[in-house]
């Protein structure tokens, strides 16, 4: 996760300690005092969802999945995470609000010292539910909207989903919950991006997370709806401009990018062109501490049956199952050659990722996209949009290695 507002506008946020080792000196209360050593864990609490979105990585369905955790199993699982020292548990789905024990489990996670956050489509969040989640210690609600009403509802397979999601956002904000937008950018909705930010900023939202499409679950079926490299670059550039425009007007919105670490290199290039070498160096240093693509390291996923995945998008492969071994034991087991190779991916990257000057802040981008596109785990990410000059540092110069003053 890359924060445009932090890097370009120096806007502090509670997650900076996790992302940039930047807790010290921040005016915001920080999630951790030290840089995160354990993964944020996404937990698909249920397969069931009241919507049927075309890009769902979890392949969620209207029907419940067999093998979902009971409340007692869920609590034992949360204890595993707390014992291991996971800093954050993201309650996801399916749609987590279809579980009637969600409030109880968020409460239990908070009591164990985990930071509970929520990923939801927002359509089931009533004022009462928002207040209950706030009262038991929920720290953040990320609500998915993927375009203006007509486009969003088509994407999500349900008429009225947009309006219901906005009501959910308003209910969270009214309850005093920190709330943000989750927006997956595709060819179908890239044009709506600015209007959605404007509309939701008007209702009081100030955090906007933009996801690139990854090729897991149903996302693989709509890979042809992914933006081209040129379009992707234009969308990210527009988000940078939008962030600066809002901040210039005194509206401190937080904007973040997820799922394509070519964005990290682009932000360095953008900072150089817009602000000069010194700012580009600061941005680069922050991103180097961030550590690039987090697969198999700083993000983990556990599906509704207990299978542990390298990220939430890697549903096709599991390292093990928490019904068999505790989460921490699975995550630490580097006898698994795939896990070992991913954690030392610099030794294996090939092609344009192999000799890229930005490797230390990108780390090869999405290995899942490379695998889906070529069958080769260490081939270049097909959605890298950097030019050859940028990759080689042949153009305006290179700051890699700290040559800027």
């Amino acid at each position, binding site marked *: 996760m890359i924060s445009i507002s932090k890097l370009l506008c120096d806007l502090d946020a509670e997650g900076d300690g996790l992302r940039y080792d930047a807790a010290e000196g921040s005016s915001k209360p920080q999630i951790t005092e030290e840089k995160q050593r354990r993964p944020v864990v996404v937990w698909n609490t249920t397969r069931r*969802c*009241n*919507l049927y979105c075309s890009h769902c990585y979890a392949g969620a369905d209207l029907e419940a999945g067999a093998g979902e*955790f009971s409340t*007692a199993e869920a609590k034992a699982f949360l204890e595993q995470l707390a014992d291991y020292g996971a800093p954050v548990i993201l309650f996801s789905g399916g749609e987590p*609000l279809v579980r009637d024990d969600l409030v109880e489990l968020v409460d239990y996670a908070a009591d164990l010292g985990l930071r509970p956050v929520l990923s939801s489509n927002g359509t089931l969040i009533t004022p009462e539910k928002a207040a209950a989640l706030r009262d038991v210690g929920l720290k953040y609600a990320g609500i998915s909207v993927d375009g203006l009403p007509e486009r969003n509802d088509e994407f999500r397979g349900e008429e009225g989903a947009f309006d*219901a999601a906005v009501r959910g956002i308003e209910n969270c904000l009214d309850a005093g919950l920190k709330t943000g937008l989750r927006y997956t950018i595709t060819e179908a909705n890239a044009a709506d991006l600015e209007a959605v930010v404007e509309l939701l900023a008007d209702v009081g939202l100030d955090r906007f997370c933009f996801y690139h499409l990854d090729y897991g679950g149903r996302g693989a079926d709509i890979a042809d709806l992914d933006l081209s490299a040129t379009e992707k670059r234009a969308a990210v550039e527009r988000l940078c401009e939008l962030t600066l425009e809002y901040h210039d007007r005194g509206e401190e919105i937080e904007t973040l990018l997820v799922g394509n670490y070519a964005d990290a290199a682009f932000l360095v290039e953008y900072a150089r062109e817009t602000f000069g070498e010194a700012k580009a160096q600061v941005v680069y240093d922050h991103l180097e501490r961030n550590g690039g693509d987090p697969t198999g390291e700083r993000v983990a996923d556990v599906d509704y049956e207990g299978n542990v995945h390298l990220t939430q998008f890697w549903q*096709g492969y599991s390292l093990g199952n*928490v019904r*068999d071994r505790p989460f921490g034991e699975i995550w630490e087991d580097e006898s698994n050659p795939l896990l070992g190779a991913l954690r030392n991916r610099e030794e294996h990257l090939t092609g344009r990722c192999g000799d890229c000057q930005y490797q230390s802040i990108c780390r090869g981008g999405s290995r899942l996209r490379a695998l889906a596109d070529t069958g080769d785990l260490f081939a270049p990410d097909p959605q890298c949009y950097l030019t050859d000059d940028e990759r080689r540092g042949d153009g305006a110069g290179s700051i890699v290695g700290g040559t800027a003053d």
Partner: protein
Amino acid sequence: MVEKEHRTPIESGNRGNPTPQWELFVRQEAGEPMYHVGSVAAASGAEAHEHASRLFGRDAVDIWCCPAAEVDRYSVRGLASDADDRGSDEPHIDEETADTPRVRES
């Protein structure tokens, strides 16, 4: 040999999300032991092997793909035994959305 603790069965009937899971066992070099390296989701054994080959083929001389639901597992530990004292083992679904879940109107 004396058993240290009592092993109990671990649930393994529902190990597909929703595609069936195949437990993977890999021998990286001839003469080395074979060991477990996780599982893949695949509709058939052939597809599981194809998937596993992409992930482990560069290292492995042998790959076994075993239907996860057919593996009997016994352990002295496990999520279920940790949860045993906590009561109900049924998944919890919100009754308000249990039949035909729809976008809430208010």
